[in-house]
């Protein structure tokens, strides 16, 4: 599944909006961009893996190695930074 159109530039703002949309749909609760989703108890540790899989599939990235840690998924801002960084890595590799 790709939720992001290929022709639209991927910015932190659009990413955050899309991630918020996914969260709102799945957990039926409004969250803040910088809210710690795990510490505030709005999502469970089981849901954490669903977040990983969703980001991988929606943005065609692989989250592996040291990136696969809970701290990267605590906030919407953190997740969008991770996706932007990994997308940048992918594009850099593709252009090499």
């Amino acid at each position, binding site marked *: 599944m790709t939720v992001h159109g290929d022709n639209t530039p991927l910015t932190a703002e659009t990413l955050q909006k899309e991630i918020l949309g996914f969260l709102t749909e*799945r957990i039926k609760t409004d969250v803040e961009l910088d809210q710690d989703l795990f510490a505030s108890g709005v999502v*469970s*540790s*089981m849901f*954490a*893996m*669903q977040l*990983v*899989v*969703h980001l991988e599939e929606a943005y065609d990235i692989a989250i592996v190695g040291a990136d*696969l*840690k*809970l701290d990267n*998924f605590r906030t919407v801002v953190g997740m969008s930074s991770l996706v932007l960084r990994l997308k940048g890595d992918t594009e850099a590799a593709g252009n090499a």
Partner: protein
Amino acid sequence: MTAFEDHRLAIIGAGVMGTNISALALGHGVSVVLVDVDETVLETARQTIKQKLRHAQLMGVLPADRPQGTLTTSVSLDDIADATTVVEAVTEVDKVKQEVLSAASRVVSPGTTLISNTSCIPINEMADWIVRPEDLVGVHFMNPSYMIKMVEVIRGPRTEPAVLEQAVELLTVLGRESLVIDDSAGFVINRLLHPLINTAAMLVQEGVASVEVVDGLLEGCLGHSTGPLRTGDLIGLENLVDSLNVLYERRGDESCRPCDLLLEKVRDGHLGRKTGRGFYDYGKVAS
């Protein structure tokens, strides 16, 4: 404590718990031979275990200083012969467990610890089915096995003390803490938990409260980290019904007779997290 390299685990049954226990062992450096009768089930299990290991890494619950164990899958029970410990994790149905435990006990050498991950069937009943009844011990792993540190260990009346000791030793290597109890249908956890989940489902069936409200009350008022109906979805509702039947047959407790709503969900194939829908809708199954 023995070294993790000293252990070779064989796990029989590649369902929810078989894959959970495999991920726990592999993540702690212990190699696993996972056996099931169906190659398709094993193929799915390999993917599931991979995802569970990723989940465990994500949650930071694996030791950083051990290489991951090697996973071998097989449809032949003969491949468990070299294991130091065998874990039976098949369906909670007497006939199925009897067939598997009996055959497994004939394949392994004396001194191999036989663990049953039974939910409710007493250890002493199962000990009658195997060659050396003293080699059998019950270990009730939780789900997800790599996240929950505590395990319920059941000493049957015929379990050899050295076998119990070996099982606890293995659990220590796997980073688990053991609480040992004596034998009884449903043991401690499921004798308490299963009638609770069944009663929670009855309350929904009677229209007293919604799924979310029943769970919300247990979570919000009693501090349960996961409400009973969400826990049922995690266990798998068909497994829950099998276990309730075992309890009802042995104890005659009406609160253990599976309620209509549970039976209906099982009939409709809404088995919980693993099918994406049970009491709750999980969307795409991710872990």
